[in-house]
């Protein structure tokens, strides 16, 4: 029982990331009708926003120390962090410690800009082109983005720790009446899960309760009719793309303490997120979220020692197997609508 609970918890953080990326993919697909292979790269750029901010915060400049001289009698220089200089030692230390959550603020304008430039500069020209072309051009873009990041940040993963307070683990087992240490769960993963829930709720709320969201939903259902109403749907779709980019980017920012970001994390997550979208049902937002969490949890179950000793490596292929089975038995996915991408 406790083992099962633990696996469910373990699956939540990966599931959250899948759900958030798949949500963005579905939004873009549903609104623009574009299959975006560069969406994983957006997730990766988000993660590197966090890396960049923590590097910016640790910028320093040498400053002469008034009291000391070195043994030659020259004035002694110390590296002084700009943050410390500006905000004082305590606040400076706090800001550096909290660089990952702060990176959210830093990332939002960047991700919106990335989404906007991508849509207006490239994707816009591919609405009328075949899906194969869309896949190919965004695939090329994904390679370019990933190589640019590799050029500037190197090929190795860059550890980006969570704030001090979240670095420990929480003993869930005691809370639920199990033995101590039966179910321990890192605080940051709880934060990530909560963050994902907030983000998902925000997106759904936005689509459900604002006029803007209503138009977008109508557009997803039937683009032509909405166009006939004289509503400039394209402009809204651009904004939707930026929002989707933002969601993926923030998912990336917050994921950095769980897995140190590297340049190919985007590709790794993209393939799985596509599988998630297909399993959830192309064009279904709740389907994407549901399938994201389901597959995340399933993957973590498959990684249990019991399972891996039974079928070695099952954790590596379980998602693909499930996807194949789902597509063969329910071709439209778990919650897919009829007529989406059928021709």
């Amino acid at each position, binding site marked *: 029982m406790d083992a099962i609970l633990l696996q469910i918890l373990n699956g939540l953080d990966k599931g959250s990331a899948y759900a958030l990326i798949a949500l963005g993919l579905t939004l873009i697909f549903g609104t623009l009708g574009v*299959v975006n292979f560069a969406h994983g790269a957006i997730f990766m750029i988000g993660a590197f926003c966090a890396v960049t901010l923590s590097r910016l915060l640790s910028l320093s400049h040498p400053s002469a120390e008034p009291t000391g001289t070195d043994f030659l009698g020259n004035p002694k220089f110390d590296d002084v962090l700009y943050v410390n200089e500006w905000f004082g030692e305590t606040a400076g230390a706090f800001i550096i410690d909290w660089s990952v959550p702060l990176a959210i603020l830093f990332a939002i304008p960047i991700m919106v800009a990335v989404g906007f430039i991508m849509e207006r500069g490239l994707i816009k020209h591919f609405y009328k082109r075949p*899906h194969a072309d869309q896949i190919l051009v965004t695939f090329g873009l994904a390679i*370019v983005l990933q190589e640019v990041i590799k050029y500037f940040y190197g090929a190795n993963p860059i550890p980006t720790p969570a704030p001090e307070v979240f670095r420990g683990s929480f003993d869930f087992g005691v809370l639920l009446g199990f033995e101590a240490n039966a179910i321990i769960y890192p605080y940051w993963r709880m934060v990530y899960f909560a963050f994902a829930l907030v983000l998902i709720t925000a997106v759904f709320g936005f689509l459900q309760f604002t006029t803007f969201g209503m138009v977008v939903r109508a557009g997803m259902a039937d683009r032509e009719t909405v166009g006939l109403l004289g509503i400039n749907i394209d402009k809204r779709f651009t904004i939707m793309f930026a929002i989707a980019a933002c969601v993926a980017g923030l998912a990336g920012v917050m994921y950095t303490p769980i897995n140190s970001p590297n340049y190919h994390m985007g590709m790794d997550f993209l393939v799985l997120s596509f599988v998630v979208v297909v399993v959830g049902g192309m064009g279904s937002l709740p389907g994407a979220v549901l399938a994201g969490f389901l597959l995340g949890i399933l993957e973590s179950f498959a990684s249990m020692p019991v399972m891996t000793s039974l079928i070695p490596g099952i954790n590596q*292929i379980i998602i693909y197997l499930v996807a194949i089975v789902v597509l063969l038995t329910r071709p439209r996915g778990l919650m897919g609508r009829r007529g989406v991408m059928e021709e």
Partner: protein
Amino acid sequence: MLGLQAKDFRLLLIVVAMTMLAPFILNPFPVNSAMAQFNAGYPDLMQRFVIFGIFAIGFNILFGLTGYLSFGHAAFLGVGSYAGVWMLKLLTMNVVPAILLSVIVAGLFSVIVGYVSLRRSGIYFSILTLAFAQMSFALAYSVLTPLTNGETGLQLSLDDPRVLGVTQVDGTIPAPHLFGASMRASYDLVLGGWQFTFNVGYYLSAVVLVLAFYLAIRIFRSPFGLMLRAVKSNQQRMSYTGLNLKPYMLAAFVISGMYAGLAGGLMVAMDPLAGAERMQWTASGEVVLMTILGGAGTLIGPVLGAGFIKYFENIFSKINDTVLHQWFGFMPDGLEDVVVFIVHPFIGKGWHLTLGLLFMLVVIFLPGGLVQGGQKIGGLFRRKAPADDSATRKQPAE
């Protein structure tokens, strides 16, 4: 000739000439000249040209004719490679059984993958093939380690049983051979400052490429090829014309999977090892790029695309900043540094960046690939060409 139209026969002759004379064509510069770095006439690289050419020709039969974009074709090449290495380990160092088994195993694997993936079309098909390829990669990388030797990759060893051959020759692993002719055997022809290398392995691959190309022409011009183009054009009309799409698609998928297996088998014959990274989706993406760059749906395009990409991969990877400074040395110092700085990210290890950009540029500006680009340029020079040749424009199959 050989059952081909004159036009196609000419094309075949061009490919024969290109492959057979490659050691000359690819080594235009004397060995000791500064331009020698642009020579590509050494066996290893020439083998890669033709092997990836075969891979791309096969991919084009699927993508170029039917429009179904598979993102997992590297899996078939990988599976073929593993099968080939096992044949060399267990049976004989003669490459014929290895290559045959590569083709057969890749064919069988593509029947399974194709049967499942072809239940859906369009983007679903692409994602399904991608999922299969990634799954194969994961299987090869970790799960099936006894068969694939996991991360390290499958290699020959000094104690392979080799039922029909010898385990060791003088304490070393014997080289793959074709009825006694070692794949590694080369003959160097020195003419003045030039040196041309004729390698057995290369010529075996080149002959196979010519045969593969000939078969592709026959398929393109056959009723079967016509049906595949009909699939691309209008599936609805096709089924209301009494044609069953599925077996046609599956046949095309398996044929192109077998081509990939053939390429994998040849790779192993040239260099007997197989690794999981051959199956990764970036590898699948590469063959897509080769096909598109050359011109999907055209006969010669994929061969050109494969050569183009492999050539520039080789050249770009060799260039470093020192070379760049040499090249741009004629410029004023400041400007030279700026130019080197700008070019730097794209060379050496930056080849993938160049590849990605190339991918985007081709899809955006030249969806018909090099062949179409060539025709456009040709059209500019031939002013008298009729303006309404829309049929030839849409089908640059020559």
